[in-house]
């Protein structure tokens, strides 16, 4: 579903010639991409909102009131209305950025470390190790992402930690595949051959030559997963498998407000709009970084 149709195959043309000016070039190219800059600003604003949430909320996000349920948008004291328990929507949306961003970003970050480690190991070792590792990974790949996430968190039970574990397991194989592909390419390159001939040990080669050249492409691929992760993480909470009430999280808020789509439809749609804005900003930013780094796909 939300996952890409196939693993992209990355190729590196002449990786080792990256001069110190390379990253400067990337930044210059990124700065010229107006859409990516706009997306970056939105992402930054969301992160700042999450960090400083307690200072920004105009009201207590947990204060419920049976008398003030589902007040319309723009009513006195409730700029964005109130939810099904009479809590201030604006405050809950602001505080919700914390858990929502955390639940979306953390699995991708964890999977970046685990997946790169597995992929680089398999790619560098080659041979039997590679076959064994990559075939096991193929099994996880045989599940559509949503199904795997729901199978795992459904079996483990609801909760923040279980949801993180499930999503990390969903993304590890995808990152490992890309990491393995680029590492295998680097391993076969002349400069690794030269390093080996000049007596460099395996550890040095991996640290200096392999990691230096594969982390960039893996990182770019990983950033493209953030938006999927945001949608899936909130989706799990939407199903009741992630964050538990009364904590504010956009997916969970969308779920509890579902009953309000006939009385206060636009309030019910607000948390989803936040997920959409976050997800599309990360997607546009990731696209921008990718073209700025000119990783060929």
């Amino acid at each position: 579903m939300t996952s890409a149709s196939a693993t992209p195959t990355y190729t590196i043309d002449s990786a080792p010639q990256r001069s110190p000016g390379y990253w400067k070039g990337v930044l210059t190219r990124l700065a010229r991409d107006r859409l990516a800059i706009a997306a970056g600003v939105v992402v930054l604003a969301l992160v700042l909102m999450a960090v400083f949430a307690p200072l920004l909320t105009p009201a207590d996000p947990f204060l419920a009131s049976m008398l003030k349920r589902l007040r319309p948008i723009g009513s006195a004291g409730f700029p964005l209305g109130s939810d099904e328990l009479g809590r201030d929507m604006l405050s809950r949306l602001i505080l919700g950025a914390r858990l929502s961003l955390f639940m979306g970003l953390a699995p991708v970050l964890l999977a970046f470390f685990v997946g790169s480690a597995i992929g680089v190991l398999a790619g560098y070792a080659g041979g039997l190790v590679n076959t064994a590792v990559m075939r096991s990974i193929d099994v996880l790949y045989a599940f559509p992402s949503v199904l795997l996430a729901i199978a795992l968190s459904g079996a483990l039970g609801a909760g923040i930690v279980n949801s993180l574990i499930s999503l990390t397991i969903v993304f590890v194989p995808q990152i490992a595949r890309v990491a393995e592909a680029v590492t295998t390419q680097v391993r076969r390159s002349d400069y690794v051959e030269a390093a080996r001939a000049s007596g460099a040990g395996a550890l040095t080669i991996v640290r200096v030559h392999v990691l230096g050249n594969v982390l960039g492409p893996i990182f770019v691929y990983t950033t493209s997963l953030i938006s999927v992760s945001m949608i899936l993480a909130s989706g799990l909470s939407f199903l009741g498998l992630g964050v538990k009430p009364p904590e504010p999280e956009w997916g969970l808020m969308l779920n509890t407000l579902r009953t309000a789509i006939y009385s206060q439809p636009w309030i019910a749609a607000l948390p989803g709009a936040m997920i959409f804005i976050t997800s599309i900003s990360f997607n546009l930013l990731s696209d921008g970084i990718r073209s700025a780094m000119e990783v060929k796909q």
Partner: protein
Amino acid sequence: MIFYLLRRIIYTLPIMLGVALLCFALVHIAPGDPLVSILPADASVELQQQLRVAYGFDKSLPEQFGLWSWRALHGDLGTSIASGRSVISEVFNAVGNTLILSAAATLIGFLFGALFGFVAGYFRGSRIDRLASLLSVIGVSVPHYWLGMVLAIIFSSQLMWLPATGASPDGGAQWAWDWVHMRHLILPAITMSVIPMGIIARTVRALVGDILAQEYVVGLQARGLTHLGIFLHVLKNCAPTAMAVMGLQLGYLLGGSILIETVFAWPGTGFLLNSAIFQRDLPLLQGTILVLALFFVALNLIVDVLQTVLDPRIERN
């Protein structure tokens, strides 16, 4: 080609075994005793033991796995703990409904995605191209469960044109191909179609761009072919890949329909998974996941085989 096909089929077997192993493991990674949901709180030790034997939880893990796979191969996925009915019959009733929804969504997504992608690729850099690219970014970025809610708000709660829940007016799970039932399909299918639409548009746009850059297209132009003639050539050349992507998307939608089915109360596998999860009905969860995952693996295989047969030029290794 025959060798490739054979290899491809044989390669699928260990994957299927792995999928089965993972589904089997689901019951065992679950915290707590799988019998907890059917046992009364004051169950005697003897009763617990009896049920443990009845469900086969007393044997060693490899034994349990062997027994479970053997039964699964014979179409027996155990008994639902919550309903007491056989898992396989529950799953098959639901798979039909999910298939109807996903197939409709894939078709809509393919038609519009291919159209957008084609126009965008043909007129690269034009305003239409930029619009199509934007639409495909939106397609892959939008939380589809939210889009479903928004469509339900607009077309059901505000305009009252279409129903927003269930598959039939009487709330039953029985499907029929008439307007009364089809009305229920429209909103969920359109919501779901957004995902493949974005991906197919992206794929087709890239394909058309690549094909137009080929030398034979220049040759066609030199021979004086009209736009239409070249268009047909390009269409023929990008069809196999586009169809393959469509096949895979159908698989993703089948497995990923739970969120949309929840929004629209569609009586498919997603609905089944939902109830399995919240009633802690692990055999039902396990069986549904197994069937959906095997569907996905089989679909992948079929797509690969068809693609090789349709386009033998594609290099395989």
